[in-house]
């Protein structure tokens, strides 16, 4: 019933810098199923964005070095693809939206020109002859601007990105990412730069459009609450590793990894006593040039104290504890 659309096997990414070998991802396994919104959460620097960029083959090499057993998208192994072949996948196969829409839109072209490029490419790849289809392209641009709830699409097409607010730009990005009907959309913190009321609008929009075009989404965010609202399944990352993965209800109601538990209790709760002290995670995220041997969370973990030696020597594997719930923890 659930068919995987993206399967990442043992993906590692190392950045060779003057400061040393910076291991951003460490043997990551991740599956996104068809028509599913997969949430990926973690703090800054844990490797969330690197994972998305590695899948899209957008990491500059060098300094990045990528090793993986395979990156399966549908039936094809993307890790074997050449740059030319990858170009065919981007946009129509896998698309991506970023946190700051102003930097990902070209300031020199109107919204209409940028959106029609995507649509033209889609038509081209599906074998349509573009030359005769300018009217069709235009009609589809208007159609998509309407779909992302932009008022007056005809005049909106003529405008440049700077004339728009952050929320409107992100709507255009979503239209561009979905216009070519990709199988998978990678959304890297798409609402983190927006206000809460705009964020609520964008989240609803993503949800309804994605189910309309039947795309899957890898939704990357540092905000657990946002992921709780949108994802079907959630993976939690820490220091370049996935430490827990489960359905969204499982993660929030029955978190098993101490890091997930700590992360959940570090945000102020609605029903908490006002001005009560929040639960904190002592210390800070390890430097990725020197990840401690054993479990990466061990120096900050409250359970590791009891089990001691094992946590500091053995790196835990991501194991399935109950149906669909995977945890990487020795305890």
């Amino acid at each position: 019933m659930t068919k995987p659309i993206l399967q990442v096997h043992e993906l590692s990414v190392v950045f060779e810098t003057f400061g040393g070998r910076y291991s951003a991802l460490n043997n990551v396994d991740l599956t996104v199923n068809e028509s599913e919104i997969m949430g990926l959460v973690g703090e800054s620097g844990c490797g969330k964005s690197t994972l998305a960029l590695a899948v899209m083959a957008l990491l500059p090499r060098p300094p990045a070095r990528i090793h993986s057993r395979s990156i399966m998208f549908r039936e094809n192994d993307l890790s074997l693809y050449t740059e030319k072949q990858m170009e065919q996948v981007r946009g129509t196969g896998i698309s991506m939206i970023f946190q700051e829409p102003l930097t990902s839109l070209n300031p020199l072209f109107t919204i209409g020109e940028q959106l029609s490029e995507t649509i033209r490419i889609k038509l081209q790849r599906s074998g349509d002859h573009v030359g005769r289809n300018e009217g069709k392209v235009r009609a589809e641009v208007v159609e998509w601007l309407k779909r992302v709830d932009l008022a007056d699409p005809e005049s909106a097409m003529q405008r440049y990105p700077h004339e728009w607010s952050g929320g409107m730009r992100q709507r255009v990005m979503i239209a561009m990412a979905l216009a070519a009907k990709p199988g998978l959309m990678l959304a890297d913190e798409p609402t983190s730069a927006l206000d809460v009321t705009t964020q609520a609008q964008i989240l609803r929009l993503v949800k309804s459009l994605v189910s309309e075009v039947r795309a899957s989404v890898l939704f990357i965010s540092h905000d657990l609450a946002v992921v709780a609202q949108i994802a079907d399944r959630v993976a939690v990352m820490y220091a370049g590793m996935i430490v827990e993965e489960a359905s969204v209800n499982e993660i929030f109601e029955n978190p098993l990894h101490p890091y997930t538990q700590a992360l959940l209790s570090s945000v102020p709760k609605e029903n908490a006593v006002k001005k009560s002290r929040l639960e904190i995670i002592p210390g800070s995220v390890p430097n990725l040039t020197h990840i401690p041997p054993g479990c990466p969370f061990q120096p900050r973990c409250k359970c590791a104290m009891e089990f001691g030696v094992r946590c500091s020597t053995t790196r835990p594997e991501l194991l399935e504890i109950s149906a669909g719930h995977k945890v990487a923890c020795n305890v």
Partner: protein
Amino acid sequence: MSNNVLLRLDGIVKYFPAKGSMFYSESGVLESGSTIHAVDGVDLDIERNSTLGVVGESGCGKTTLARTILLLIKPTSGKLYFEGRDITNLSYRDLAKIRPNLQIIFQDPFSSLDPRMRAKEIIAEPLGVVTKNRETIKERVRELFEQVGLGMDQLNRFPNEFSGGQRQRIAIARALATKPKLVILDEPTSALDASTQAQILNLLLDIQEQYKMSYMFISHNVSVVRHMSDRMAVMYLGKIVEEGPVDELMLRPRHPYTAALISSIPKPNPRARGEMVEIRGETPSPVNPPSGCRYHPRCPFATKLCSEREPQLQELEDRHSTACHYPLKS
């Protein structure tokens, strides 16, 4: 004026000139002489030893309000009373005597600390205003360093050697140096990760208890403000639309904007989906704010009256006020 009021804002207004825009407006006239209504008539009291939270979306004037309170920028009109004394038009010299009581912590600890000063110098700088005794300063710096949870071995380091959370600790130590009566916290944890944010919030709570001072906690993050504050004010396009005790305001919002803002906060509970109420459209520009109630173009309950007459902030029940012609039922 009740003795419990530390700082009173009376009709504070701050307009900025919108300087000749690079582009011509649609009518072909160069846009000039227009003003940005950043803060437009704000009345607020900050009480002793308590926290006033100020929430609102970007561009609503929160930060301008903070800078006006510190008189870093002069208000266009309105008065500021500190401990009952009008400080709006004090001379620079007289103001310098008040300033140790008013401090601020900014959002971005990467740009608010001088990269060429050592941590101990950053913290010692404001102390120079209060005392010239080197030994006293040195001792106080060490004391502050310990209070904010930094190690003595880090005294001589430069800001770039610290993480974001540690830098925010330095900024806190510097703000505390002169034992202020009011600290304005302008998005103090917005640049930090969840686990670091919790550490800083706890530190701020500990310090407030110890120093018995007031906070004005400005943030777009309503959950954080709720946790930290006693009273809360909601800003929309330069105006306070609602003000009251925090729980009262969160549970029984009376202004439609407050209600919508609260309901659009994502809850960390996947079973509470679909409870979000959306606000239509976008926040209008503060250059030409809408007539009457500024929220009326987006408000589901707006009538003709709302577009014609501006509602004033009125007390509806015990110390809970809202500026709406048709306040929601409590």
